[in-house]
């Protein structure tokens, strides 16, 4: 767990930020990488960017709801969620926050969409929904359980219990093995694997890969690779010291050069890498996983 400093605007109240990570129960680990509990108090109200990443967004709020001021898809109206589920996305969303933010973020692989939400990841692509609209009553129950839980271990235990109850492991088999392999290959390479190379590895034509991939995940393999490259670059930017230059990040993450990285950031994040770093809230999206 890494402590980060918050926005520079000092609030009148003492600021405190807590991030607590935990692994889910073993049967859930195949598609949930970890839980991240967060509690931020005393920050001046503001907005932050909900960035494209390699996970589906699945956040259960505790207290104030999650206020999406601008959706990643401009055609979807702004909304507030007690428990938000969103698919992969190719643009950032804008989330408003008040002086108190608290909740549990559940990092779900798109390969887990069928298991957890009963739909392929494509159905959630570039969209946000209230959890209970996808999974029914149990979504509301999860939210309620977290409001009452006294501490982080109890909150994570409630997530385990609820998710184990509603996860349907059999549905996971419906993601074709080739598509699982394609996703894993892209994630492992940080989005550097070329689509042609990926198609060869699977013994599929590029067209067939693009079609099948899109049917499962909602976006094509090329855009997925861009999102994964961006995900890796933002992780590296946040976690390496300032003497690691943006040019080095670009070189490490498979961009042709720094201006290529800048262009991708403008499209995916809506700003430059340096602006992202200056304005960003304490980051919990990709702190290192807890040991063990």
């Amino acid at each position, binding site marked *: 767990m890494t402590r980060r400093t918050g926005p520079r605007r000092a609030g009148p109240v003492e600021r405190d930020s807590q991030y607590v990570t935990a692994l889910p129960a073993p049967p859930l680990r195949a598609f949930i990488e970890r839980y991240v509990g967060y509690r931020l108090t005393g920050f001046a109200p503001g907005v932050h960017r909900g960035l494209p990443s390699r996970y589906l967004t699945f956040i259960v709020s505790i207290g104030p709801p999650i206020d999406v001021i601008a959706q990643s898809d401009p055609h979807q109206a702004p909304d507030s969620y007690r428990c938000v589920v969103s698919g992969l996305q190719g643009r950032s969303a804008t989330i408003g926050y008040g002086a108190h933010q608290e909740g549990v973020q559940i990092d779900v692989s798109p390969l887990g969409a069928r298991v957890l939400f009963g739909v392929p990841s494509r159905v959630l692509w570039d969209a946000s929904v209230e959890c209970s609209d996808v999974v029914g009553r149990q979504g509301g129950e999860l939210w309620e359980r977290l409001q009452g839980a006294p501490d*982080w271990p109890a909150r994570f235990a409630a997530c385990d219990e609820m998710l184990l109850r509603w996860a349907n492991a059999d549905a996971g088999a419906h993601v074709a093995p080739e598509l699982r392999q394609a996703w894993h290959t892209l994630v492992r390479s940080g989005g550097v694997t070329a689509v042609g190379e990926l198609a060869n590895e699977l013994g599929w034509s590029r067209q067939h890969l693009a079609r099948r991939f899109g049917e499962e995940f909602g976006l094509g393999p090329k855009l997925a690779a861009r999102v994964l490259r961006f995900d890796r670059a933002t992780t590296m930017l946040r976690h390496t010291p300032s003497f690691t230059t943006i040019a080095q990040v670009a070189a490490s*993450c498979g961009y042709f050069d720094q201006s290529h990285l800048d262009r991708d950031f403008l499209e995916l994040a809506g700003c430059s890498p340096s602006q992202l770093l200056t304005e960003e809230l304490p980051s919990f999206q990709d702190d290192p996983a807890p040991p063990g």
Partner: protein
Amino acid sequence: MTNNTESSTRVWPILSYSDAPEAMAFLTRAFGLERRAAYARADDPQIIEHAEMRWPGGGGFMLGTAGKDDSAFGQRKPGNDAVYVVCDDPDALFAQATAAGAEVVRGPADEDYGSRGFTVRDLEGNIWSFGTYAGE
């Protein structure tokens, strides 16, 4: 929950290696250092732009490939650094380090200030001292 041993590591030596991937493998084999992050150049995995290793007993250091760029960090000559690491069992660690091919500078010995430790060189000549003395 906002503080723990890891986030309280506030001093990070920065080393550079001609062959950073091999150096990391050696440091793990020889000393039990744990690789936590490594960012290789996408079109040349031999070049490590930035990497971090942790000492299980606390602390860590950063490293990169020598000559990776024109910056002050990129231009340092490898093989000139020295690091001292506190350890509980220097004799066992000495056996592990020499078995992995570390060059002995000074074998395990008791110091008159009450520490027991040893000193070896890694594959590129940096000096690693290990001892029970934990600082004043």
